[in-house]
């Protein structure tokens, strides 16, 4: 929303410097994004939150300044009493309060459509609006000034002098004043005359009933529309207007008569003519201000400070909320333009924001620290531990997008079989990644021009399932390296598994690619399998009191005998074998490092010799292995 300083000053005395005013407006909730200096004015660009449709008007912004500065606002003086002067022109209005809660309108006869005066055109231009003719410009001007959208119909184009407000069935055609044709969806609220749709309520007027040079008589309509219906139609058509933004958020239901009066005053002044109908104000509800109670003790409890009651009353007064205090309870009367004030907490915010958040003291929460494990608990120490091991092993961490493009998919993964976003920001980010491999491979090649040795990993989510019924998100831990060999990667994973208490052979997680060694683990599965006691389940083993006997055993074994099988076979031969590892491998010979250890006494050479014999015998039987000569 734009707000020229000169226009604001018509309603409120402003002494603050523009920068300071911008900061104060931001503090109370009208985020000042820009202050634009023009040749003759200063224009504030404000971000209005969805709860404050009243601030989509200059008077609304002026009211906020009045509250900040505790000053009074000057409303424009309304002259007309809306009583008809000319012979009445007939009009039958059929409407339904369920789809059009309020229909306020009047007919003016004998106007002269023409160019707007300079002051009006200048004002609209400052608001980035294109002046059209005096009637259209007046309706736009009054909307910008007071916040109630207004539409002027050419009375003579309303066939049959009849207006019917109804919902569409779907598929109807509508051409807007700006020459665009729409096919309307179901449940759009429209006005029809005897023959055709002449207005898309709350969003755009129809081309067939607009105000043009030849227009003599007009119907001015100031409605209250239903937020959700306006929003749905506006979204379905992708058509937004200043009016629809206001109706979507909730228009000033009590403001229609004043907006009509203001419009009529200006029409009579700038385009001539005479009122030629009684006032139409068709509604079921009375749209009066409502009462809201505020308990002082509740206010203090939520805010954490005791603002003096006098100050509270001044703030509420400055917001035009007519507070009445009785026994620590304030009753406020909420003007109809503040549709956002519905509960006690809303009033609490009003007081806090005008008091200014930056004037509050700061405290830290007291009270009991929760000790029960929170639902969805995650132990980040495990992530940290694993990442630290990877880092220590020379891997660097990357974070990549979850969304990938179809062209990124490797052979074997069909885009039909993975989860897809219906409305992607671009084709490059349309699918949820089923693996971390894609982005790791990309990262590897991206770095090749600058680095020779590349080792990268990512701990992130992948998304499985062919459709939403099967959808699952799983943490994967994956890495790629072009500078470490298979055994280094395997050893790294072995180290991780060992440290978090997982007894598994990591070989199946490792893939040897042309570009390097890749690994991918289902980290969610690991989280499930390790007990919460992964940090505490290590038990100290007392140091041996007796020395071990260590020997290296070289054997000749066929290629297909797997080292892991040989090792476990050796281990099963005696409980006195404390550890076995592969020391060396050359052609068909393998050397194993064996540690013999007895907890209770010194081992003798004879005992070891016996075990060695047993080992050789069993290896020979199982793997046809012989001792190296």
């Amino acid at each position: 929303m734009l707000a020229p300083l000169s226009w604001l000053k018509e309603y409120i005395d402003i002494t603050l410097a523009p920068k300071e005013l911008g900061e104060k407006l931001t503090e109370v909730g009208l985020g000042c994004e820009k202050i634009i200096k023009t040749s003759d004015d200063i224009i504030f660009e404000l971000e209005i939150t969805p709860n404050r449709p009243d601030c989509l008007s200059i008077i609304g912004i002026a009211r906020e300044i009045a509250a900040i500065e505790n000053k009074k606002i000057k409303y424009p003086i309304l002259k007309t009493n809306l009583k008809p002067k000319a012979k009445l022109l007939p009009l039958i209005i059929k409407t339904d309060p369920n789809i059009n809660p309020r229909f306020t309108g009047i007919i003016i006869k004998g106007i002269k459509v023409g160019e707007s005066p300079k002051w009006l055109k200048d004002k609209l231009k400052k608001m980035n609006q294109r002046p059209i003719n005096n009637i259209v410009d007046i309706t736009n001007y009054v909307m910008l000034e007071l916040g109630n959208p207004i539409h002027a119909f050419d009375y003579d184009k309303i066939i049959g002098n009849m207006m019917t407000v109804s919902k569409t069935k779907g598929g109807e055609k509508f051409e807007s004043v700006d020459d665009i044709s729409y096919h309307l969806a179901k449940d759009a609220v429209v006005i029809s005359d005897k023959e055709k749709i002449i207005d898309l309520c709350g969003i755009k007027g129809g081309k067939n009933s607009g105000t043009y040079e030849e227009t003599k008589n007009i119907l001015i309509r100031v409605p209250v529309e239903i937020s959700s219906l306006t929003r749905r139609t506006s979204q379905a058509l992708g058509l937004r207007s200043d009016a629809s933004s206001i109706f979507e958020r909730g228009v000033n239901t009590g403001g229609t008569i004043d907006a009509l009066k203001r419009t009529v005053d200006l029409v009579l002044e700038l385009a001539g003519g005479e009122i030629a109908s009684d006032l139409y104000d068709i509604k079921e509800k009375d749209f009066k201000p409502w009462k809201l109670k505020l308990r002082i003790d509740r206010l203090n409890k939520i805010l954490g400070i005791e603002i003096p009651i006098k100050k509270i009353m001044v703030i509420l007064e400055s917001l035009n909320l007519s507070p009445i205090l009785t026994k620590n309870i304030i009753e406020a009367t909420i003007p109809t333009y503040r549709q956002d004030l519905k509960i006690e907490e809303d009033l609490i915010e009003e007081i806090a924001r005008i008091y200014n958040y930056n004037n509050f003291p700061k405290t830290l929460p007291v009270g009991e620290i929760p000790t029960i494990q929170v639902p969805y608990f995650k132990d980040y120490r495990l992530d940290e531990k694993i990442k630290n091991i990877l880092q220590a092993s020379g891997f660097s961490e990357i974070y990549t997008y979850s969304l990938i493009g179809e062209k990124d998919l490797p052979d074997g993964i069909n885009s039909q079989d993975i989860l897809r976003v219906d409305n992607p920001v671009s084709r490059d980010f349309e699918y949820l990644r089923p693996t971390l491999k894609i982005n790791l491979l990309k990262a590897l090649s991206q770095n090749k021009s600058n680095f020779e040795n590349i080792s990268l990993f990512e701990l992130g989510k992948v998304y499985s399932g062919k459709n939403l019924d099967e959808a699952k998100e799983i943490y994967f831990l994956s890495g790629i390296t072009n500078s470490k060999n298979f055994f280094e990667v395997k050893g790294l994973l072995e180290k991780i598994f060992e440290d978090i208490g997982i007894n598994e052979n990591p070989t199946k997680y490792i893939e040897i690619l042309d570009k390097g060694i890749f690994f991918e683990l289902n980290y969610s599965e690991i989280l499930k399998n390790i007990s919460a006691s992964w940090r505490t389940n290590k038990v100290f083993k007392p140091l041996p009191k007796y020395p071990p006997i260590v020997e290296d055993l070289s054997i000749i074994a066929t290629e297909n005998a797997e080292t892991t099988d040989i090792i476990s076979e050796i281990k099963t031969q005696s409980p006195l074998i404390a550890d076995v590892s592969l020391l060396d491998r050359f052609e068909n010979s393998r050397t194993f490092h064996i540690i013999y250890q007895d907890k209770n006494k010194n081992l003798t050479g004879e005992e070891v010799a016996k075990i060695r014999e047993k080992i050789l015998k069993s290896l020979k039987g199982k793997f046809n292995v012989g001792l190296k000569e």
Partner: protein
Amino acid sequence: MQIKNSAVSMIIDAVDQKELEEIKLQFLGRSGKLTLTLKGITKIPVEKRSEVGKLANEVKKTIEETLEEKNSTLRSKFSSLKKQSIDTTAPGIKPAIGHLHPMTQVLSEVIDVFKQIGFQVADGPEIETDYYNFEALNIPKDHPARDTQQTLYLDTRNSKVNPGEIILRTQTSAMQGRIMEKVKPPVRVIVPGKNFRYEQVDSSHGFEFWQVEGFMVDTNVMLTDLFGTIEYVLQKLMGKNVKLKFTTTNFPFVEPGVDTYIECSICKGKGCSFCKQSGWSEIMPAGMIHPNVLKAAGYDSQKFSGFAFAIGLSRLVTLRYQMNDLRLLTNPDMRILNQF
């Protein structure tokens, strides 16, 4: 004992390794003092032999240990003298370790800071229902606040899901309902995670970004607690001198609504493209939890109150390291990673 004391004092006084060798010979050598004593053990009555033998062995051990200690001191002295012959000004050889992503580093600090004030850490789904992402947060369908969080909807092909029901979460706040409906107050929790929005990418916005949601509910949680918590956290993360500013804002799931800005670290408050020339960067939207949200979770909104906030983690990381573009965080270029 005499032998021991004299040997030890001689060893300590020795100035070089040669002298040390001589001392060793003098005591432990074939005709050394201690060796001779041990040889003379046969002259001692049998019942005392073991005692003397034990003592002699202890003395021998002490002398050996002292010798070794002195020897190593002399050796290092020698080598430090030798050091002068290499160019010690050349840089050292760093271990070939990798780099943890700045996001990980900052997140672990964030977790640490919150743990100190009793917050636990939770983790939740990115594929989320419209209910938890919006409705449970007081944002019904057709609410204009949905415009501020343009949503990525998931394709419902071949599934029983109604279009529009399953989305990629737009905010980690979606975890408020999920957690609160499962646990009674007091609750203090933070939820780090990735969010998705239909948003055109620029230097300070992305369609995927990280937040750390946090909230607490108890019998007596106040707005001043929220301000105090925010100040505590941001001072810990950004330094004691961080400049903060609180403004009013509106999110349907909080009332009163608060937004937190810190002075833009990239331009030091002067105004740049990252902070849209304002000199301030929005970092931590927050507020007192709306009674409707408490009610939706089954809490008594008159008895309990709470606050909620979301730290823009991606933005915090960029501000912390004065990175002028959020996209640097998802760029796997090692020239970036190696700086952290």
